[in-house]
């Protein structure tokens, strides 16, 4: 038997799904990937055993780096598309184009945005797995109660910053509930929202060509201002962390939860529970406040880290598993993420999934960070700085100035090579 190691985040649920191989029983990111691995281990004919190592999301990349740096990389690892350049530029991941051809992964079936995300220098470097981005998860009942509905009785979302604030005031006045719930502490969510708004204004935070930071631009200031206005007015609780924000939404204390595609399945399931305070759950694409449609997005992708001692059997086993994952792309999409295979997107079973019709535009307006190195360092620093504007009332200009300076120093290395 060939044992290969799989390195991933998505949480640990090996106990809950200890021996489950029935995909229909699996819920959520963790459940589905766990059951996929179980199923593969149970059913593959080559005696391959995939050993999963699940690492907490917050320290995942530290761990991955440490493993790669320590010359003990896993055989397979999940990562975000935005991080790939770091590894690809340094030659730390296997090129996969040729291998995909051998094992029968059809590269042509990938939707273009996904394929481009994993391509560089005319080579494919990873298996794209999904496209995920921000959504507005909506408690329709509260919108009805606040009268924020269109003619069809559907929740009506704002079309400009001013309208957003008006709606939020209305919500507060009519229902006593907060308009927004957003994880604002130790979480990247507000930063992703901020990015979306920067892009909606036609701006950006880095110049990919010149490899320069643009954090003090007027678009950047405006996006940050809007966020802080919302917090200041009490339309979102600045102290919520991920769990608290989610809890506020599920218990009907907030009308909109800003969270990713991965939540759809979970919230839908919650809403079906008769005891739940959230009864009428719907999903919406990120509303366009500034004119240009855009929403932050990223992809989960699978890479085969370069081994210091290449092992053909393991490589083959890893590729077999990648093929298996690609074949089950649909099941991953059940989490709420968008599938990356055109054939899956178009399939009937896909269309049959709940709420999917409610955020069809996301696939087209999804925007990612430009392909530069050190994205993660950049994001971490941005998250910290932005958070501090509402958490400790750091002046917004100062936060952006600090970010600009730090980002420049990070990008320096990127410019050098």
């Amino acid at each position, binding site marked *: 038997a060939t044992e290969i190691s799989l390195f991933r985040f998505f949480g640990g649920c090996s106990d809950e799904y200890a021996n489950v191989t029935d995909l229909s029983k699996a819920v959520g990111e963790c459940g589905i990937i766990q059951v996929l691995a179980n199923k593969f281990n149970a059913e593959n004919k080559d005696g391959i055993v995939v050993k999963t190592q699940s690492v907490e999301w917050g320290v995942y990349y530290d761990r991955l780096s440490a493993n790669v*740096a320590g*010359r003990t990389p896993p055989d397979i690892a999940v990562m975000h598309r935005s991080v790939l350049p770091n590894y690809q530029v340094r030659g730390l991941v296997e090129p996969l184009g040729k291998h995909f051809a051998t094992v029968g992964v059809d590269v042509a079936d990938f939707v273009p945005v996904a394929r481009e995300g994993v391509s560089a220098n005319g080579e494919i470097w990873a298996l794209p797995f999904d496209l995920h981005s921000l959504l507005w998860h909506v408690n329709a009942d509260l919108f009805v109660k606040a009268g924020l509905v269109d003619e069809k009785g559907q929740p009506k979302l704002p079309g400009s910053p001013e309208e957003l604030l008006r709606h939020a005031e209305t919500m507060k006045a009519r229902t006593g509930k907060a308009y927004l719930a957003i994880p604002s502490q130790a979480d990247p969510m507000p930063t992703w929202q901020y990015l979306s708004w920067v892009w909606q204004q036609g701006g950006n935070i880095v110049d990919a060509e010149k490899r320069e930071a643009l954090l003090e631009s007027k678009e950047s200031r405006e996006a940050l201002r809007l966020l802080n206005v919302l917090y200041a007015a009490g339309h979102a609780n600045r102290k919520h962390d991920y769990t608290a924000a989610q809890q506020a939404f599920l218990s009907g204390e907030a009308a909109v939860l800003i969270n990713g595609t991965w939540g759809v399945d979970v919230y839908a399931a919650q809403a079906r529970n008769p005891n739940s305070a959230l009864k009428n759950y719907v999903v919406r694409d990120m509303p366009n406040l500034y004119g240009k449609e855009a929403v932050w997005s990223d992809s989960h992708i699978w890479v085969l880290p370069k081994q210091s001692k290449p092992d053909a059997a393991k490589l083959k086993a890893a590729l077999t598993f990648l093929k298996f994952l690609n074949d089950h792309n649909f099941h991953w999409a059940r989490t709420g993420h968008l599938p990356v295979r055109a054939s899956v997107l178009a399939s009937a079973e896909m269309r049959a999934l709940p709420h999917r019709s409610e955020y069809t535009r996301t696939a087209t307006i999804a925007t990612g960070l430009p392909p530069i190195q050190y994205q993660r360092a950049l994001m971490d620093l941005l998250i910290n700085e932005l958070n501090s504007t509402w958490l400790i009332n750091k002046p917004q200009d100062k936060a952006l100035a600090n970010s600009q300076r730090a980002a420049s120093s990070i990008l320096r290395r990127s410019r050098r090579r």
Partner: protein
Amino acid sequence: MNRTFGDRLILVLVIGAAFVWMMPMLWVLSLSLRPNEELVRSTAGILPWPKTLEHFATLLRVSLTPRWLLNSVIVAFGMTALTLLLSSLAGYAFARIDFPGRRAVFLLVMAGLMIPEQAILVPLHAMLADWEMHNTYFSLIAPRLAGPMGVFLMTQFFKAVPRELEEAAELDNASRLKIFWSVMLPLSRPALTTLGIFTFLFAWNDFLWPVVTATQPEMYTLSVGLGSLQGNFAMSEGLGFLMASAVFASAPMVILYVVFQRYIVQGITLTSGK
């Protein structure tokens, strides 16, 4: 008498403080013995317990905890044994053998006391990466053998051993190695015990270096493994389990502490210098 009244008052106050001091541990112990379903409802109170040992069973059954325990045991014992050996050999040489350059070498070694582990964390990692030695028992143990504290303590101890003993052995035709092995080592049992316990405690609780060098779960020590669980298990679902793992990881230390308390206190007196 006034004096004794004051003493009693102080004693009462301290007993109260001790109770508060123990609360967190007792509470955690109690949590670890209650079923998760109950914990979801309420975590208040300490009694009644125990109600269930399921968390401990789970700990041993499905997780890597037994493996981490084994790693911790190997690392702690390995580090302790080797530290004792290296420190006593070197301490003996510094204390008792007159060789050229001794003073200079001793100063060089003692200068190492000034170098904190964090200062060499990064280069050490880079070095072991070059050797492709991460995630091995070697990488968990070897860098910790370089600390001069043990050598310092053993040097101090051997210096205090009456010189006559060694001279008597010399008159008894014993060689250097024989003197070291048959006379000095057995003599230094109290010092070795103390140093051993401290090394063991340190090894068992070590965090920063193992977290950096042990990146594969199979090679985690208990303290690193526990750290990784803290993130992976949301406090909501696996609270009892999480608390059980804390109890589990501390149990050996508590036992060690109870058994060797005398030496630990004695060791502190030793570190404070004599």
